[in-house]
Protein backbone atom coordinates (compact mmCIF):
# COMPACT_ATOMS: atom_id res chain seq x y z
CA UNK A 1 0.00 0.00 0.00
CA UNK A 2 1.03 3.61 -0.50
CA UNK A 3 1.59 5.84 2.50
CA UNK A 4 2.48 9.52 2.89
CA UNK A 5 4.92 10.86 5.48
CA UNK A 6 3.38 13.67 7.56
CA UNK A 7 6.83 15.23 7.96
CA UNK A 8 8.32 15.34 4.45
CA UNK A 9 5.05 14.74 2.56
CA UNK A 10 6.75 12.14 0.33
CA UNK A 11 5.09 8.82 -0.41
CA UNK A 12 6.47 5.34 0.18
CA UNK A 13 5.35 1.72 -0.06
CA UNK A 14 4.73 -0.35 3.04
CA UNK A 15 2.92 -3.57 3.90
CA UNK A 16 1.92 -2.89 7.53
CA UNK A 17 0.23 -0.35 9.83
CA UNK A 18 1.56 1.15 13.01
CA UNK A 19 4.64 3.20 13.84
CA UNK A 20 7.51 2.94 11.37
CA UNK A 21 10.30 5.11 10.02
CA UNK A 22 9.88 7.14 6.82
CA UNK A 23 12.43 5.83 4.23
CA UNK A 24 12.98 9.41 2.96
CA UNK A 25 13.37 11.57 6.07
CA UNK A 26 13.78 8.95 8.81
CA UNK A 27 11.04 10.43 11.01
CA UNK A 28 8.68 8.06 12.84
CA UNK A 29 5.31 7.87 11.13
CA UNK A 30 2.16 6.41 12.63
CA UNK A 31 -0.10 4.71 10.12
CA UNK A 32 -3.48 4.07 11.68
CA UNK A 33 -5.25 0.81 10.86
CA UNK A 34 -8.60 1.69 9.22
CA UNK A 35 -10.06 -1.68 10.25
CA UNK A 36 -9.20 -1.22 13.93
CA UNK A 37 -12.12 -0.38 16.26
CA UNK A 38 -12.41 3.33 17.12
CA UNK A 39 -10.96 4.33 20.47
CA UNK A 40 -13.45 4.20 23.32
CA UNK A 41 -14.78 7.60 24.40
CA UNK A 42 -13.50 8.78 27.78
CA UNK A 43 -15.57 7.48 30.66
CA UNK A 44 -17.87 10.09 32.19
CA UNK A 45 -16.41 11.59 35.33
CA UNK A 46 -17.89 10.18 38.52
CA UNK A 47 -17.55 13.63 40.06
CA UNK A 48 -17.56 17.05 38.47
CA UNK A 49 -14.12 18.67 38.25
CA UNK A 50 -13.21 20.07 41.59
CA UNK A 51 -15.40 17.78 43.63
CA UNK A 52 -13.90 16.42 46.84
CA UNK A 53 -11.68 13.45 46.27
CA UNK A 54 -10.98 14.20 42.63
CA UNK A 55 -7.31 14.75 41.86
CA UNK A 56 -7.14 18.15 40.19
CA UNK A 57 -3.50 18.18 39.42
CA UNK A 58 -2.10 15.85 36.80
CA UNK A 59 0.97 15.24 38.93
CA UNK A 60 1.99 16.23 42.42
CA UNK A 61 5.48 17.38 43.14
CA UNK A 62 7.67 18.07 46.13
CA UNK A 63 7.96 21.68 47.21
CA UNK A 64 11.38 23.21 46.51
CA UNK A 65 11.95 23.19 50.27
CA UNK A 66 11.78 19.39 50.22
CA UNK A 67 14.71 19.45 47.80
CA UNK A 68 16.89 21.63 50.00
CA UNK A 69 19.64 19.02 49.97
CA UNK A 70 20.21 19.67 46.29
CA UNK A 71 19.00 23.27 45.95
CA UNK A 72 20.56 24.57 49.12
CA UNK A 73 18.65 25.84 52.14
CA UNK A 74 18.38 29.50 51.18
CA UNK A 75 17.32 28.99 47.59
CA UNK A 76 14.91 26.18 48.53
CA UNK A 77 13.35 28.36 51.24
CA UNK A 78 13.01 31.43 49.03
CA UNK A 79 11.58 29.47 46.09
CA UNK A 80 9.03 27.82 48.36
CA UNK A 81 8.14 31.10 50.06
CA UNK A 82 7.45 32.75 46.72
CA UNK A 83 5.26 29.86 45.61
CA UNK A 84 3.34 29.48 48.88
CA UNK A 85 2.76 33.18 49.47
CA UNK A 86 2.58 34.64 45.97
CA UNK A 87 1.12 31.74 43.99
CA UNK A 88 -0.77 29.75 46.63
CA UNK A 89 -3.40 28.43 44.22
CA UNK A 90 -0.87 26.88 41.88
CA UNK A 91 1.40 25.72 44.70
CA UNK A 92 -1.12 24.02 46.96
CA UNK A 93 -2.90 22.37 44.04
CA UNK A 94 0.14 20.38 43.11
CA UNK A 95 2.25 20.10 46.24
CA UNK A 96 2.71 16.66 47.75
CA UNK A 97 0.91 16.20 51.05
CA UNK A 98 2.62 12.98 52.02
CA UNK A 99 5.56 14.67 53.73
CA UNK A 100 4.09 17.30 56.05
CA UNK A 101 7.32 17.34 58.04
CA UNK A 102 8.89 19.57 55.39
CA UNK A 103 5.96 21.98 55.63
CA UNK A 104 6.16 22.06 59.42
CA UNK A 105 9.90 22.75 59.32
CA UNK A 106 9.31 25.52 56.78
CA UNK A 107 6.68 27.10 59.03
CA UNK A 108 8.79 26.76 62.15
CA UNK A 109 11.72 28.50 60.46
CA UNK A 110 9.52 31.33 59.21
CA UNK A 111 7.82 31.93 62.54
CA UNK A 112 11.03 31.58 64.52
CA UNK A 113 12.87 34.15 62.41
CA UNK A 114 9.93 36.55 62.70
CA UNK A 115 9.79 35.99 66.46
CA UNK A 116 13.52 36.59 66.85
CA UNK A 117 13.29 39.88 64.99
CA UNK A 118 10.31 40.94 67.08
CA UNK A 119 12.22 40.07 70.23
CA UNK A 120 15.16 42.12 68.96
CA UNK A 121 12.93 45.12 68.28
CA UNK A 122 11.34 44.67 71.68
CA UNK A 123 14.73 44.66 73.39
CA UNK A 124 15.83 47.75 71.45
CA UNK A 125 12.67 49.68 72.24
CA UNK A 126 12.22 48.16 75.68
CA UNK A 127 12.39 51.25 77.82
CA UNK A 128 10.15 53.32 75.58
CA UNK A 129 7.66 50.52 75.19
CA UNK A 130 7.55 49.86 78.90
CA UNK A 131 6.84 53.53 79.63
CA UNK A 132 4.11 53.62 77.00
CA UNK A 133 2.44 50.47 78.32
CA UNK A 134 2.51 51.69 81.90
CA UNK A 135 1.02 55.03 80.88
CA UNK A 136 -1.76 53.32 78.95
CA UNK A 137 -2.45 50.87 81.75
CA UNK A 138 -2.96 53.77 84.13
CA UNK A 139 -5.83 54.92 81.93
CA UNK A 140 -7.40 51.50 81.29
CA UNK A 141 -10.01 50.24 83.77
CA UNK A 142 -8.32 47.82 86.15
CA UNK A 143 -5.10 48.50 84.31
CA UNK A 144 -3.26 48.98 87.58
CA UNK A 145 -3.47 45.25 88.09
CA UNK A 146 -0.98 44.83 85.25
CA UNK A 147 1.57 47.34 86.51
CA UNK A 148 4.94 45.78 87.30
CA UNK A 149 3.80 42.32 86.29
CA UNK A 150 5.42 39.81 83.98
CA UNK A 151 3.09 40.98 81.25
CA UNK A 152 4.51 44.48 81.08
CA UNK A 153 8.05 43.23 81.44
CA UNK A 154 7.55 40.55 78.81
CA UNK A 155 5.84 42.87 76.33
CA UNK A 156 8.52 45.44 76.80
CA UNK A 157 11.30 42.89 76.65
CA UNK A 158 12.64 44.57 79.74
CA UNK A 159 14.48 41.67 81.27
CA UNK A 160 17.47 39.95 79.75
CA UNK A 161 16.21 36.61 80.99
CA UNK A 162 12.86 37.25 79.34
CA UNK A 163 14.54 38.12 76.06
CA UNK A 164 16.69 35.00 76.10
CA UNK A 165 13.67 32.90 77.08
CA UNK A 166 11.73 34.26 74.11
CA UNK A 167 14.60 33.51 71.75
CA UNK A 168 14.95 29.95 73.00
CA UNK A 169 11.22 29.27 73.19
CA UNK A 170 10.42 30.63 69.73
CA UNK A 171 10.94 27.43 67.71
CA UNK A 172 9.05 25.29 70.21
CA UNK A 173 6.17 27.77 70.41
CA UNK A 174 6.10 27.89 66.60
CA UNK A 175 5.94 24.10 66.37
CA UNK A 176 3.10 23.90 68.88
CA UNK A 177 1.31 26.81 67.17
CA UNK A 178 1.38 25.07 63.79
CA UNK A 179 0.08 21.77 65.12
CA UNK A 180 -2.62 23.32 67.33
CA UNK A 181 -3.93 25.57 64.56
CA UNK A 182 -3.80 22.73 62.06
CA UNK A 183 -5.90 20.71 64.50
CA UNK A 184 -8.39 23.56 64.94
CA UNK A 185 -8.70 24.06 61.18
CA UNK A 186 -9.10 20.33 60.69
CA UNK A 187 -12.02 20.36 63.13
CA UNK A 188 -13.83 22.99 61.09
CA UNK A 189 -12.92 21.34 57.78
CA UNK A 190 -14.31 18.04 59.05
CA UNK A 191 -17.53 19.64 60.23
CA UNK A 192 -17.92 21.38 56.86
CA UNK A 193 -17.20 18.14 55.00
CA UNK A 194 -14.12 19.63 53.41
CA UNK A 195 -11.34 17.39 54.68
CA UNK A 196 -11.30 14.77 51.97
CA UNK A 197 -7.52 14.40 51.99
CA UNK A 198 -7.06 14.20 55.72
CA UNK A 199 -4.99 15.93 58.35
CA UNK A 200 -1.76 15.67 56.39
CA UNK A 201 -3.13 18.05 53.76
CA UNK A 202 -4.27 20.50 56.44
CA UNK A 203 -0.92 20.35 58.21
CA UNK A 204 0.92 20.85 54.92
CA UNK A 205 -1.14 23.95 54.15
CA UNK A 206 -0.73 25.46 57.61
CA UNK A 207 3.02 24.78 57.53
CA UNK A 208 3.70 26.32 54.15
CA UNK A 209 1.18 29.16 54.62
CA UNK A 210 2.98 30.04 57.86
CA UNK A 211 5.73 31.32 55.63
CA UNK A 212 3.62 34.47 55.35
CA UNK A 213 4.24 35.11 59.04
CA UNK A 214 7.84 35.92 58.14
CA UNK A 215 6.48 39.34 57.21
CA UNK A 216 6.21 39.88 60.95
CA UNK A 217 9.98 40.33 60.95
CA UNK A 218 9.59 43.71 59.27
CA UNK A 219 10.57 46.61 61.57
CA UNK A 220 7.03 47.94 61.79
CA UNK A 221 5.74 46.65 65.14
CA UNK A 222 2.04 45.91 65.11
CA UNK A 223 1.42 46.62 61.43
CA UNK A 224 3.82 43.90 60.29
CA UNK A 225 2.01 41.30 62.37
CA UNK A 226 -1.35 42.47 61.08
CA UNK A 227 -0.22 42.16 57.48
CA UNK A 228 1.43 38.81 58.20
CA UNK A 229 -1.71 37.43 59.85
CA UNK A 230 -3.95 38.62 57.04
CA UNK A 231 -1.63 37.19 54.42
CA UNK A 232 -1.53 33.90 56.29
CA UNK A 233 -5.33 33.69 56.29
CA UNK A 234 -5.45 34.35 52.54
CA UNK A 235 -2.75 31.78 51.77
CA UNK A 236 -4.27 29.18 54.10
CA UNK A 237 -7.77 29.66 52.70
CA UNK A 238 -6.60 29.20 49.13
CA UNK A 239 -4.41 26.33 50.29
CA UNK A 240 -7.30 24.49 51.94
CA UNK A 241 -9.40 24.93 48.82
CA UNK A 242 -6.72 23.45 46.60
CA UNK A 243 -5.14 20.84 48.88
CA UNK A 244 -8.44 19.51 50.24
CA UNK A 245 -10.10 19.74 46.81
CA UNK A 246 -13.02 21.66 48.24
CA UNK A 247 -14.93 24.83 47.44
CA UNK A 248 -13.85 28.39 48.16
CA UNK A 249 -16.80 28.94 50.48
CA UNK A 250 -15.97 25.97 52.70
CA UNK A 251 -12.27 26.79 52.74
CA UNK A 252 -12.88 30.41 53.71
CA UNK A 253 -15.42 29.39 56.33
CA UNK A 254 -13.00 26.92 57.90
CA UNK A 255 -10.30 29.58 58.03
CA UNK A 256 -12.49 32.44 59.20
CA UNK A 257 -14.60 30.81 61.91
CA UNK A 258 -11.76 30.16 64.38
CA UNK A 259 -10.48 33.66 63.84
CA UNK A 260 -13.90 35.12 64.63
CA UNK A 261 -13.56 33.74 68.15
CA UNK A 262 -10.07 35.18 68.40
CA UNK A 263 -11.32 38.44 66.92
CA UNK A 264 -13.80 38.80 69.76
CA UNK A 265 -10.87 39.01 72.13
CA UNK A 266 -8.77 41.12 69.76
CA UNK A 267 -11.61 43.57 69.18
CA UNK A 268 -12.11 43.86 72.91
CA UNK A 269 -8.38 44.48 73.36
CA UNK A 270 -8.44 47.08 70.58
CA UNK A 271 -11.44 48.76 72.14
CA UNK A 272 -9.62 48.91 75.45
CA UNK A 273 -6.53 50.38 73.79
CA UNK A 274 -8.57 53.02 71.97
CA UNK A 275 -10.46 53.78 75.15
CA UNK A 276 -7.18 54.10 77.00
CA UNK A 277 -5.60 56.34 74.36
CA UNK A 278 -8.65 58.60 74.18
CA UNK A 279 -8.55 58.90 77.94
CA UNK A 280 -4.90 59.91 77.66
CA UNK A 281 -5.86 62.66 75.24
CA UNK A 282 -8.67 63.91 77.45
CA UNK A 283 -6.46 63.92 80.52
CA UNK A 284 -3.61 65.49 78.61
CA UNK A 285 -5.84 68.25 77.24
Amino acid at each position, binding site marked *: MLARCVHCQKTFDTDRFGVQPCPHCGQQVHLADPTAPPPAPPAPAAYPPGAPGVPWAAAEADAPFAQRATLGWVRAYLDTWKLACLQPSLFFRSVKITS*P*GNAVLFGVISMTVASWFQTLYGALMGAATRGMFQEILKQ*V*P*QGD*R*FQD*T*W*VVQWMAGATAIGTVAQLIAAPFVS*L*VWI*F*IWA*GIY*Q*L*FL*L*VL*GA*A*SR*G*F*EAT*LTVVGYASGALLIGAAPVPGLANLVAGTWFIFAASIGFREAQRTTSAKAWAATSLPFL*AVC*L*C*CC*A*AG*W*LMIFGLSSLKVHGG
Partner: protein
Amino acid sequence: MAAGRRGGRPGIPEVFALIGAASFLAARFLPLLGIHSECPFRLATGLPCATCGMTHAFVALARGDLAGAWAASPLGAGLAGGAWLYALLDLARVGLGLPWPSLPQRAWRALAVATLSAAALNWAWMLWCARMA
Protein backbone atom coordinates in the same frame (compact mmCIF):
# COMPACT_ATOMS: atom_id res chain seq x y z
CA MET B 1 -4.44 11.23 60.37
CA ALA B 2 -1.10 9.88 59.38
CA ALA B 3 0.03 6.62 60.81
CA GLY B 4 2.45 6.75 63.64
CA ARG B 5 6.06 6.15 62.85
CA ARG B 6 7.84 6.21 59.56
CA GLY B 7 11.40 5.19 59.40
CA GLY B 8 11.81 5.58 63.15
CA ARG B 9 10.84 9.26 63.13
CA PRO B 10 7.90 10.49 65.20
CA GLY B 11 4.72 10.97 63.25
CA ILE B 12 1.81 13.34 63.71
CA PRO B 13 0.18 11.35 66.55
CA GLU B 14 3.44 11.35 68.51
CA VAL B 15 3.88 15.10 68.10
CA PHE B 16 0.38 15.69 69.48
CA ALA B 17 1.20 13.32 72.34
CA LEU B 18 4.35 15.32 73.09
CA ILE B 19 2.34 18.56 73.06
CA GLY B 20 -0.14 16.97 75.47
CA ALA B 21 2.66 15.85 77.77
CA ALA B 22 4.31 19.29 77.58
CA SER B 23 1.03 20.94 78.52
CA PHE B 24 0.92 18.82 81.67
CA LEU B 25 4.50 19.72 82.60
CA ALA B 26 3.84 23.41 81.99
CA ALA B 27 0.61 23.37 83.98
CA ARG B 28 2.20 21.44 86.83
CA PHE B 29 5.58 23.12 87.17
CA LEU B 30 5.48 26.59 85.57
CA PRO B 31 3.95 29.53 87.46
CA LEU B 32 1.38 30.14 84.73
CA LEU B 33 -1.18 31.72 87.04
CA GLY B 34 1.44 34.22 88.21
CA ILE B 35 1.37 35.96 84.85
CA HIS B 36 -1.91 37.70 85.75
CA SER B 37 -3.10 37.93 82.18
CA GLU B 38 -6.67 39.19 82.02
CA CYS B 39 -8.92 38.33 79.10
CA PRO B 40 -9.56 41.50 77.04
CA PHE B 41 -13.07 40.31 76.20
CA ARG B 42 -13.90 39.89 79.89
CA LEU B 43 -12.37 43.26 80.71
CA ALA B 44 -14.42 44.98 78.01
CA THR B 45 -17.73 43.22 78.47
CA GLY B 46 -17.60 41.68 81.91
CA LEU B 47 -18.36 38.32 80.33
CA PRO B 48 -16.02 35.36 79.77
CA CYS B 49 -14.83 34.53 76.26
CA ALA B 50 -15.03 31.03 74.80
CA THR B 51 -11.62 30.04 76.11
CA CYS B 52 -11.71 31.78 79.48
CA GLY B 53 -10.66 29.60 82.40
CA MET B 54 -8.65 27.17 80.29
CA THR B 55 -5.33 27.94 81.96
CA HIS B 56 -6.87 27.69 85.43
CA ALA B 57 -8.50 24.39 84.48
CA PHE B 58 -5.23 22.91 83.21
CA VAL B 59 -3.32 24.06 86.30
CA ALA B 60 -5.98 22.86 88.73
CA LEU B 61 -6.23 19.45 87.09
CA ALA B 62 -2.46 19.09 86.99
CA ARG B 63 -2.53 19.57 90.77
CA GLY B 64 -5.28 17.01 91.20
CA ASP B 65 -8.02 19.54 91.90
CA LEU B 66 -10.80 18.15 89.73
CA ALA B 67 -13.54 20.34 91.23
CA GLY B 68 -11.44 23.45 90.75
CA ALA B 69 -10.70 22.51 87.16
CA TRP B 70 -14.38 21.91 86.43
CA ALA B 71 -15.36 25.19 88.04
CA ALA B 72 -12.78 27.09 86.01
CA SER B 73 -13.87 25.61 82.68
CA PRO B 74 -15.57 22.28 82.05
CA LEU B 75 -14.18 22.20 78.53
CA GLY B 76 -10.70 23.04 79.80
CA ALA B 77 -10.91 20.22 82.34
CA GLY B 78 -12.06 17.80 79.67
CA LEU B 79 -9.45 18.99 77.21
CA ALA B 80 -6.66 18.68 79.76
CA GLY B 81 -7.73 15.23 80.88
CA GLY B 82 -8.20 14.11 77.30
CA ALA B 83 -4.83 15.46 76.17
CA TRP B 84 -2.93 13.81 78.99
CA LEU B 85 -4.78 10.52 78.64
CA TYR B 86 -4.08 10.60 74.92
CA ALA B 87 -0.37 11.21 75.59
CA LEU B 88 -0.25 8.17 77.89
CA LEU B 89 -2.16 5.96 75.49
CA ASP B 90 -0.02 6.97 72.55
CA LEU B 91 3.12 6.34 74.56
CA ALA B 92 1.81 2.87 75.36
CA ARG B 93 0.87 2.32 71.73
CA VAL B 94 4.34 3.26 70.54
CA GLY B 95 5.92 1.16 73.28
CA LEU B 96 3.89 -1.87 72.24
CA GLY B 97 4.58 -1.23 68.57
CA LEU B 98 0.88 -1.01 67.71
CA PRO B 99 -0.33 0.88 64.63
CA TRP B 100 -2.35 4.05 64.85
CA PRO B 101 -6.02 3.04 64.86
CA SER B 102 -7.67 3.80 61.56
CA LEU B 103 -11.02 5.55 61.90
CA PRO B 104 -13.41 6.13 59.02
CA GLN B 105 -13.98 9.70 57.85
CA ARG B 106 -17.50 9.69 59.31
CA ALA B 107 -16.14 8.89 62.76
CA TRP B 108 -13.64 11.78 62.54
CA ARG B 109 -16.43 14.09 61.44
CA ALA B 110 -18.64 12.97 64.31
CA LEU B 111 -15.78 13.62 66.73
CA ALA B 112 -15.25 17.09 65.25
CA VAL B 113 -18.95 17.95 65.54
CA ALA B 114 -18.96 16.71 69.14
CA THR B 115 -15.88 18.78 69.99
CA LEU B 116 -17.25 22.01 68.53
CA SER B 117 -20.62 21.38 70.14
CA ALA B 118 -18.90 20.88 73.47
CA ALA B 119 -17.04 24.16 72.99
CA ALA B 120 -20.29 25.99 72.27
CA LEU B 121 -22.03 24.40 75.24
CA ASN B 122 -19.07 25.25 77.45
CA TRP B 123 -19.25 28.92 76.46
CA ALA B 124 -22.99 28.99 77.09
CA TRP B 125 -22.38 27.45 80.51
CA MET B 126 -19.65 29.98 81.31
CA LEU B 127 -21.89 32.88 80.28
CA TRP B 128 -24.73 31.51 82.40
CA CYS B 129 -22.44 31.10 85.40
CA ALA B 130 -21.12 34.64 84.96
CA ARG B 131 -24.65 35.98 84.83
CA MET B 132 -25.67 34.08 87.93
CA ALA B 133 -22.60 35.19 89.87
